């Protein structure tokens, strides 16, 4: 068993690294309230006395202008960022997959209508749509998540539709018709399970960029609002101190970089494993 594991790890070293880093982040997100040294800081507690301290043993990532421990903020922030990203993807998948299935299987004018609407939403500059929605409903984490989901679902509609179209006349679907299955049953029992795999892979690769967009929105003041410890927001607060107190901006930025990289690496790995194509050689 050891040998096979070693073989796979060596073969896709990067994916394994990604997996470990991701595991660490997920763990911190879950255990954050218990392992954060100053959990109160994320709930509005302030200690103006020791503000803007450089990294030290009590404060591994230093403190912000209100004396809050950045290490705790980043830890609790992981729950907000990862959670926010995950919920966005789930929403986007729900809308996207449903519309994609209908468009793919129904065909005709319904397919045309759904796909043209998808083109329009895709034509809309996504960040602008997100910013506009977040601005109209008022800036908050939930609205940012909703806004991102609304500008992200079209990708999944297109992906699912193309899958369904190619599967619809696959032999095993025809065979199911021969076996007396009704179209609806075929859609759920045969087409959906086979169509969903590439979408799941795409979703796992998108999780990274969604977290990045959420951080961007918070940086603009349209995502999470104080005192919620979202990573982008911490950087936004810290931007006045970029050139004076380097640690304020560096650590939350590093957290985003590591989390999103890990997600991308795992997404890549999943992609390689699921559509196991033989690799050529040059």
């Amino acid at each position: 068993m050891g040998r096979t594991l070693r073989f796979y790890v060596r073969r896709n070293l990067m994916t394994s690294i990604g997996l470990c880093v991701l595991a660490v982040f997920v763990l911190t997100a879950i255990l954050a309230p218990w392992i954060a040294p100053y959990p109160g800081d994320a709930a509005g507690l302030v200690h103006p006395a020791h503000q803007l301290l450089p990294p030290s043993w009590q404060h591994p990532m230093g403190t912000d202008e209100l004396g809050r421990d950045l290490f705790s903020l980043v830890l609790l922030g992981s729950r907000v960022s990862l959670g926010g990203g995950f919920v966005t993807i789930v929403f986007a998948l729900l809308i996207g997959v449903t519309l994609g299935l209908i468009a793919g299987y129904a065909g005709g004018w319904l397919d045309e209508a759904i796909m043209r609407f998808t083109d329009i939403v895709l034509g809309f500059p996504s960040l602008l749509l997100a910013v506009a929605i977040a601005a109209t409903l008022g800036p908050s984490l939930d609205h940012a998540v909703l806004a991102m989901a609304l500008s992200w679902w079209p990708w999944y509609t297109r992906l699912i539709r193309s899958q369904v179209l190619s599967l619809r006349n696959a032999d095993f679907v025809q065979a199911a018709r021969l076996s007396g299955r009704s179209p609806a049953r075929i859609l759920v029992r045969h087409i959906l399970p086979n169509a969903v795999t590439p979408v799941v892979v795409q979703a796992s690769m998108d999780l990274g960029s969604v977290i990045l967009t959420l951080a961007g929105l918070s940086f603009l003041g349209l995502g999470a609002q104080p005192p919620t410890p979202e990573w982008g927001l911490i950087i936004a607060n810290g931007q006045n101190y970029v050139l004076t107190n380097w640690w304020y901006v560096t650590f939350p930025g590093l957290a985003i970089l590591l989390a999103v990289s890990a997600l991308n690496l795992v997404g890549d790995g999943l992609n390689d494993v699921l559509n196991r194509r033989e690799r050529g050689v040059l």
Partner: protein
Amino acid sequence: MALLSMRGVHVVVDTAEGPRTLVRLSELELAEGEMLGLVGETGSGKTLTGLAVTRVFPTPSIRLQGGSIELGGRDLAGLGERELLAVRGREVGVVFQDPNASLNPVFPVGRPLMDLLGLHRSLRGQAAVAEAVRLFQRVELPDAAALLSRYPHELSGGQRQRVMIAMAIAAGPKLLVADEPTTALDVTVQAELLRLLDDLRREAGMSVLFITHNLGVVAHMVERVAIMYAGDVVETGPTRAVLKEPRHPYTRLLLEAVPRQGQGRLKAIAGTAVPRSEIAQGCAFASRCPFAQDRCRAIEPALEGPGVHRAACLRQEEVLHV
């Protein structure tokens, strides 16, 4: 003296459980200007044997473990990647099976041919175009000049195979490895192409390693034949001798499995093909062979027989006369 002689060629694939043997070829020889039929079913290792000549394996995990591959006296197995590159195309041409996938869809069919002419025969510009047109005419392609700038999807399957043959013989190689060149074509088109291949071979004195699973084609096209099973040659000899008086049980059963009009039940070979890596010792075919005896499962038979017609079977005499 044989143009190509392959001895003890060992091809493996790296898997999670370590290297797995795919081909363990005892010996295979091809005389100059000779067309040898390499016949075998899926998984018999016939394609990999052909690819092993110039080490053009499809995936990085498949590699040549050992053995000698002498072409015109020089051992290709020992050559490094750089020197082997000079052999590919110039001395050994290749034709693949699938006409749809073997030509780059976004380039006019003439382009790769002219690049090869530039590379191997340093022909540039108009000279290369003229030579390309000549080659296209040589492989009987209609209005060759116009065809140079047409795209693969505008040609029929047969025409695309002809383009591939033109590319293979562009540098005037001594050996052509043809891996099931006509299998994907319709029967009527297949016949013409085989005739073309034969004419080209005779005209250029070029040897051809013709890889196929179709016994009918082999019966009428090649002078000598080698039957492969589980990664090794089990019988070889002049075509007529091997097909009319098979000395190896596998060859015999294979011939009887071909459906013919009015024949009752076919004599199907029991069980499924056993991969070489799962055979510890003895004859690879023992588990499915009606002639098998205990000694067959113990001793690994060598390729021997009276004169040129040889087989790897301890009971080949009985097989011949039953």
